[in-house]
């Protein structure tokens, strides 16, 4: 639908393409979106910012027809619209790229692009016309300057390429408005730059873009207008040129934010080697090396940070160290004792605490009670059980102690973990692991998707633990977190640690280059791996 041909009823801003009026969405008793007023102007990049859990994705899912509003209205070009499914939204010209890609791994690029809009054959209508499909996809990629092999399977593409397929999928449907949900969280800093350029290109070609993000810097660079959402409410609407990063951050959180924790590094001389990893390797399901000869050492009283773009082997590394995956080579020594390929219970007994990446996978069991989760990892030890028979009184007291000491907000002591918010669930894990009095803490993405209050609390816990002499392996893809907590930083790329930097002297540029696989070389400048 070309822009500008539709006639608008009088009184409506000519430029407004999409708007909402008091849009509200409730899930049971929980209000995810509360009377949202949003205005999007044609041919602009509109950014929606807010903390994790603020309700950005819910809002977008309503605009895309995936969720239906509990109350309120959506207007497209001044007309009231109701979408009962994404298909409706697409026909009206609204497309969305989800944070988790909606692609079929076993199918090819072009099959995914045309999925749901296949072209019937000329003669046999029930068969599909693959040639024509490919031809149209080809001209589409050429028009937007995307470099993709149409016959490749999705499972063989990089994340960045998959994202391009997602965008092409929407462009194929000729949408005017493109919604992008946290598009940059899976990209390297360099890929992010390219991606942002593409966005500006799309805008130049007349598309309207709605960009959801919590990365303020990117938004400041590319958007025209910004709407801030907090706890399901719109709390501000500003032009990008009239605001700044700190101002936005303050709007998002509602108070002044210290973007870094107070971290005073105390060098000590008599440090013990707590964890020594040598030439560790393992492979993924396809047999490719996922962790490739990784070696590092962590001392007592030290935080070793590992940073990298998601999917570069950090997950697998942590899984090996926490007993969830087997290494195919190399050794792990803990406190002078070899623990390679030990199971989780052996690791825990020897004094390792684990905050896993997947909170509701490895960390907690949502359908079990708080108490049952609180004693997880120590069920066979006293005082929780004797001769494999539980002591309920002790368990209840212990659970209550964790809740009090770590300020975990609960609704029902006897209820399941599913009642907890993300931040409180994570606090429960931190509490449980800290109370086990470990000497080595492995923390993987410890603050992903939790509110700022909980982030500060968890960071404090990690620093205090280090100051008490504990050793910490911190794995995160948040550069800020790594920079403010670590004493040494290793950067992972394609399964290798390709560089170690000192957080006090390094720059974000240096780490960003390493994350993208570029190693600074003294003689030739930058060398790509």
């Amino acid at each position, binding site marked *: 639908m070309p822009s500008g041909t539709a006639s608008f009823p009088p009184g409506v801003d000519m430029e407004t393409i999409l708007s909402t009026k008091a849009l509200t969405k409730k*899930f049971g008793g929980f209000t995810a979106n509360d009377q949202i007023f949003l205005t999007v102007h044609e041919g602009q990049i509109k950014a929606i910012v807010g903390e994790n859990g603020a309700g950005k994705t*819910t809002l977008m899912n309503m605009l895309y027809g995936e969720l239906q509003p509990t109350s309120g209205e959506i207007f497209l070009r001044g007309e009231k619209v109701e979408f009962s499914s994404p298909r409706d939204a697409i026909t009206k010209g609204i497309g969305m790229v989800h944070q988790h890609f909606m692609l079929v791994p076993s199918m090819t690029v072009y099959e995914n692009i045309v999925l749901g809009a296949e072209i019937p054959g000329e003669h046999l209508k029930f068969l599909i016309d693959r040639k024509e499909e490919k031809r149209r996809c080809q001209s589409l990629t050429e028009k937007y300057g995307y470099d993709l092999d149409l016959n490749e399977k999705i499972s063989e593409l990089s994340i960045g390429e998959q994202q391009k397929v997602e965008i092409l999928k929407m462009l194929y449907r000729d949408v005017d408005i493109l919604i992008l949900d946290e598009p940059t969280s899976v990209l390297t800093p360099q890929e992010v730059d390219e991606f942002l350029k593409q966005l500006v290109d799309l805008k130049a070609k007349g598309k309207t873009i709605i960009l959801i993000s919590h990365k303020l810097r990117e938004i400041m660079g590319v958007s025209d207008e910004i709407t801030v959402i907090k706890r399901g409410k719109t709390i501000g609407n500003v032009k990008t040129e009239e605001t700044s990063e700190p101002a936005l951050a303050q709007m998002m959180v509602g108070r002044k934010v210290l973007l870094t924790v107070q971290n005073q590094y105390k060098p000590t001389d008599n440090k013990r080697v707590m964890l020594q990893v040598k030439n560790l390797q393992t492979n993924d399901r396809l047999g490719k090396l996922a962790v490739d000869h990784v070696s590092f050492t962590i001392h007592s009283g030290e935080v070793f940070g590992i940073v990298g773009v998601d999917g570069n082997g950090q997950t697998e590394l942590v899984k090996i160290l926490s007993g969830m995956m087997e290494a195919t080579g190399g050794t792990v020594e803990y406190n002078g004792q070899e623990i390679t390929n030990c199971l989780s219970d*052996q690791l*825990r007994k020897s004094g390792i605490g684990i905050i*896993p990446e997947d909170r509701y996978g490895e960390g907690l*069991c949502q359908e079990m009670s708080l108490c*049952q989760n609180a004693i997880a990892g120590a069920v*066979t030890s006293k005082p929780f059980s004797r001769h*494999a*028979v539980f002591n309920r009184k002790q368990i209840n007291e212990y659970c209550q102690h964790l809740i009090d000491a770590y300020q975990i907000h609960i609704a029902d002591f006897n209820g399941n973990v599913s009642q907890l918010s993300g931040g409180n669930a994570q606090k429960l894990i931190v509490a449980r692991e800290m109370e086990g009095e470990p000497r080595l803490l492995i923390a993987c993405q410890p603050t992903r998707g939790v509110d700022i209050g909980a982030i500060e609390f968890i960071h404090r816990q990690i620093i205090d633990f280090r100051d008490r002499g504990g050793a910490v392996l911190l794995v995160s893809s948040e550069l800020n977190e790594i920079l403010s907590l670590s004493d040494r930083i290793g950067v992972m790329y394609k399964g290798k640690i390709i560089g170690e930097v000192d957080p006090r002297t390094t720059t974000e540029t240096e780490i960003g280059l390493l994350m993208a696989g570029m190693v600074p070389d003294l003689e030739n400048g930058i060398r790509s791996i």
Partner: protein
Amino acid sequence: MKRIKWKNLANSVLPVFFALLIGAVIMLAMGHNPLNAYRIMFERPLFTLRGLTNTLHIAGPLLLAGLAIAVTFRSNLYNMGVEGQLIFGGFLAGLAGAYLHIPNPFLHKFVCLVVGIIAGMMFVLIPAILRAFLRVDEMVVTLTLNYVMMTVLEYLSSGPFRNQGAGYVSTNTIDKTAMFNRIGKTRLTPFFIIAFLVFLLFFFMHKRMVFGYRGEAVGKNPEFAEATGLRVRRHIVQVMIISGALAGLAGAGHMMSHEFNYTLSFSGTPGIGWDGMLISLLGGHSPAGVLIAAVFYSALKTGSDNINMYTGIPKEIVAIIQGLIVLFLSIRFINDRFGLTKRWRNKRNMKGTVHGTFE
């Protein structure tokens, strides 16, 4: 907590109600009085002393078979081979009873039970190991092995171990020393007490011991279980073996307290192992639920003989009702979060919500 329990109860009672209702419709269509039929079916087995003790007597192996399935279901494993393990246990216990002439009655019984238990354990070892080490779907393997065991036992009982004196395919009758005798004038035998003690042990293990916790954790979130040190692989093997042992014990007990020799209809149709599955589902996979379900089901089973005897209705009506109960048990009539009517009223609003889409 109380609310949830009430719902679980409703989710077990409603399927039975609907299945009986459909059974009634079939009987009506055939020109019989369903109320009369159900009265005949349940009156004797539940409300007369002799009938009740008979019901409990039949319930012994059913209880064990139900527990055998419940213990795997709770851990999200499906040992569908309880039937095969059960008849193997029964068959070997029968051989031990007929060929090992041990004069001491206690010792002889003990040996036979142990043989049955070991038989069940051995036979479940194949799917258990394939499941734990190669991740082969245990359900498909156990289902298949039932056919294998039936064929093998058919051969053994009609060939090498056939009782030549009998006019039909059967093995030799077990020695008197291996038989569980009736207690007093009732139909009950000491085997029911053994089954009940096993039940009590299980009840305690599930409610109070690490074993129950581990099963729950593995069943609800195996990654969590492994990550918190519960050794899921070992648990899989362990639970499968326990399940096989229970099935073997059930088979041995059935042999020694009821059948006394192995025939081709040793376990009946659809077979005690399959009954066990229904019982486990009906009891919500909890030990106490399994006990109640076993008794109810036993009454249904013994009642089906009465229905055949006193009315003109074929006893297969009970098999149909059983199948319908299983069918209705597959869905939850009452959701955990909403009541029945409330759920339907909310259905329109809930439509379109997809899990995990709100941040």
